[in-house]
């Protein structure tokens, strides 16, 4: 119920903030679509293959394109290599604006930008630290599995155990990843009050952080589940889609994205009120 209430508040009071965050996401992904549209023109030129892309998935058209147009595809990777970090950076900065607005109970664009100005770089630093920690955590878990995989394959009597071990490690990895990112989020909230050293506040108040982690879990799980559900739905349907259906689904995705942004902001609100309210 709490989430329904906080969602109501988000879409009522913080409507503008939702819009700002949504636009940030949109300006990250929409230019990519246009760049790709042009890139495909280079790959298939004026051949009939372009028309065949309209129908069902055709492995040969794609493999021949991948094999023969390697230079063009390299430019796609370069494009992604630039766009992706920019997107992540924009999103990290926008969370500074959101927290600031929530803290000031303001919905003005000016306050959003002020939040980015005053907190943005700190938030970016926290995000980077969290990404590094996540990389280390992943390395710790998966290096073990992957470096021993051949040993498991050769010396374990039953391959079921190899699969189960993989699934178990995935679960452990998931919990660890979640805890790390929640700690990151709590650290950001703390920046609202203690404007000092990022690291100093990072290592204090574990109890609050832990509680926030637990409080936040349902909404984060909800966001991730929606993401997975949409992905599966899209995967299951889209291979046979005509272009019009793809575009309709892309529009539908905008609605979902808007809802997810709202959910994300209500989650921020929860963690903020919790950490700020009890410290």
């Amino acid at each position, binding site marked *: 119920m709490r989430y329904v209430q906080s969602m109501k508040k988000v879409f009522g009071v913080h409507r503008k903030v939702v819009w700002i965050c949504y636009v940030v996401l949109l300006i990250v992904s929409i230019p990519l679509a246009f760049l790709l549209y042009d890139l495909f023109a280079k790959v298939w030129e004026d*051949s009939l293959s372009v028309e065949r892309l309209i129908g069902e998935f055709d*492995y040969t058209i794609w493999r021949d394109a991948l*094999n023969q147009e390697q230079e063009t595809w390299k430019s796609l990777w370069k494009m992604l290599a630039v766009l992706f970090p920019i997107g*992540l950076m924009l999103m990290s900065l926008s969370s500074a604006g959101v927290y600031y607005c929530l803290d000031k109970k303001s919905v003005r664009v000016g306050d959003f930008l002020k939040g980015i100005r005053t907190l943005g770089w700190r938030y970016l630093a926290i995000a980077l630290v969290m990404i590094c920690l996540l990389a280390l955590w992943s390395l710790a878990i998966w290096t073990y599995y992957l470096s021993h995989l051949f040993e498991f394959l*050769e010396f374990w009597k*039953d391959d079921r155990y190899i699969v189960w071990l993989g699934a178990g490690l995935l679960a452990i990895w998931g919990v660890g990843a979640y805890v790390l990112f929640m700690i990151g989020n709590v650290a950001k909230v703390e920046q609202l009050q203690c404007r000092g050293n990022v690291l100093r506040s990072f290592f204090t108040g574990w109890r609050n952080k832990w509680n926030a982690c637990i409080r936040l879990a349902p909404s984060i799980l909800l966001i991730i589940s929606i993401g997975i559900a949409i992905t599966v739905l899209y995967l299951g349907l889209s291979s046979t889609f005509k272009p019009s259906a*793809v575009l309709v689904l892309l529009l539908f995705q905008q609605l979902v994205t808007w809802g997810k942004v709202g959910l994300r902001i209500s989650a921020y609100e929860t963690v903020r009120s919790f950490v700020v309210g009890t410290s």
Partner: protein
Amino acid sequence: MVLLILRAMRLIIFFMSFFSLLPSFADTSTCREKSDAHALSLRTTNYVMELDLDESKHQVQGKSTITWVNRSPDAVSTLRLYMYLNAFSNRKSSYLRNGRGIGSDQVDDRPAEDWGWVKVSQAHQEKVEEPLKQSYVSPTDGNPEDQTVLEIALWEPVDAGDTLRLELEFESKLPRIFGRSGFAEFSFMHWVHWYPKLGVYEEDLDGTWGWNCHQFLPQMEFYGNHGNYEVLINAPSHWTLGGSGCMGVSVLDDSRSRFHFVAHDVIDFAWVASPHLQVIEEQWNDVHLRYLYPSSHAGHADRLVQAATFGLEYMTQYVGDYPYTTLTVLDPPVYGLRSGFMEYPTYITGGSFYAWPRQIRTIESLVLHEFAHQYFMQLLANNEKEEAWLDEGFATYYEDRIMEAMLGERSSLFDVFGYHVSNSAFTRNEYVSIAEGKTDPIGTKSWEIEGPYKAIIYSKTATFLKTLECYMGRQDFDAMMRRYFEAHKFTNPRGEDFLNLLRATLKTQDDNILSPHADAFIDEAIFGTSTCDYLIKDVKQDGQGGIFDHTIRLERRGDLSIPVEVAVKFEDGVDQLLVWDGQEQAHEMHLSGPHRILSVEIDPHRKNQMDINFNNNSFAARPGKLGRAKYAGKLAFWFQQITNTLAVLL
């Protein structure tokens, strides 16, 4: 004198021990093979072997009686035998020394018990007491350290048409699996290339008779004459054994049994032994099928059954009868996976993992590939060392066909969320992906190939065969393959046998556009390294007074040329199908008429599968944009999906 009597007695006892090996069907054999069933092959080389398995040492003690019929005009005074387990006896063998053999990356720190070998302790020619002299020879690469070919000098030459009876006592020790041969954890043992085996005495292309008995080098497989095998193995009763031919079991004592294998008219004998395999038995017409698998793979045992029975059905219909009464399929446990993916006479091994998705049909494709080898390598027993394309390429081609007949043309290999890949498209892609300049001709001897072996030998050959099928029409192609099969089954055909039949068949096909240029195409495809890429350079349309002059400029990149069809579509809906013989590097077509051209396409039915890029084969006057928009939209979706999930975390 006493000495002489003693020696004579020893000799009598020695030979009696071999006669005791003669088939005794008093056991609980389920074998339906009769030892004197009408011979399907010439039965040039025949083996009766009795083995004691020492499972703790991964070793067998064996006695072998080889009968060999000299079908040459020569009196033969030396024999050559494959001793392939010695390829795994040390790192100086030709197989391991240059680092290219499978498993040669695992030679460092190998404990002594992980190496393998085979030794002949005694060899006797019939009626001669004195043991035969043996020495190792290196006819293929001259490596004096290699011990994979044994030469035995006979006391008496074997005259033309005569039969030799050779008695051997030997000992084989498996290595930890190299290639496909060896032991793994949990007492899993795969006995491949494991016994002293006679080479092939044959006439080479220059008309000289001699032993074709290559050393074991990387990428090599089998070459042998057809014959009968009777193999008796003393092994633990509770173990599961399987292998070539049919199997019967008779209990010897509390713990051990004698497993009795009989395989007729085959070129080799391989077997597996393990205490941890389960068995399913099925019947398909006259063929008794045995599936061996670890319990964790029970969930997909039905996939093995479906693939093998469908394969039997299909090959019988399109190539020829499966003449044997058994087929054994092993799905190895993962700890023995290195023994998988291989073909032996009436015995094949696949490969899978627990919970392997049904939408990824590699389990089926592996079984079908290895099954197709029953025809190409076993019944048509080509020299897999010198002309591997005749078996690997042909098996891949039929693997593609059976997979598509069984699981659908578009999605036979992979079908996840509607993203589908057919087996043959995957095969063609392997050939298309061979990097320029990194290839060898299909017809290269397998140990001399330095390019990507599988892409060249398997995939390029299969793509070549599919191209032939498309140009000839499936019916005529199948008729030719049946002729090839019937003419050469139970013999050792050569590449030229197939190519001569192919050339002759193409000459009789008047309506086949490939026929006039077939010889050059075949030569370049098999013995050359060129590729081909047909493409449309440009299309010009000049209109005056309601009449258009069209110029279509076509081009071929690469020196592999083949005639192609060119389909032209006009605005009024009329289609024209033209033919370009494809011989020059570039070609112009001139057309005129009252309508504009809508599209031009080279090879609209994708008959020429050797074309390495289909995307540049066509021209559309008004190329649609929706296809591009569709995939641009899709990728934008994914990007947005990923970023807005990450946004939560940032």
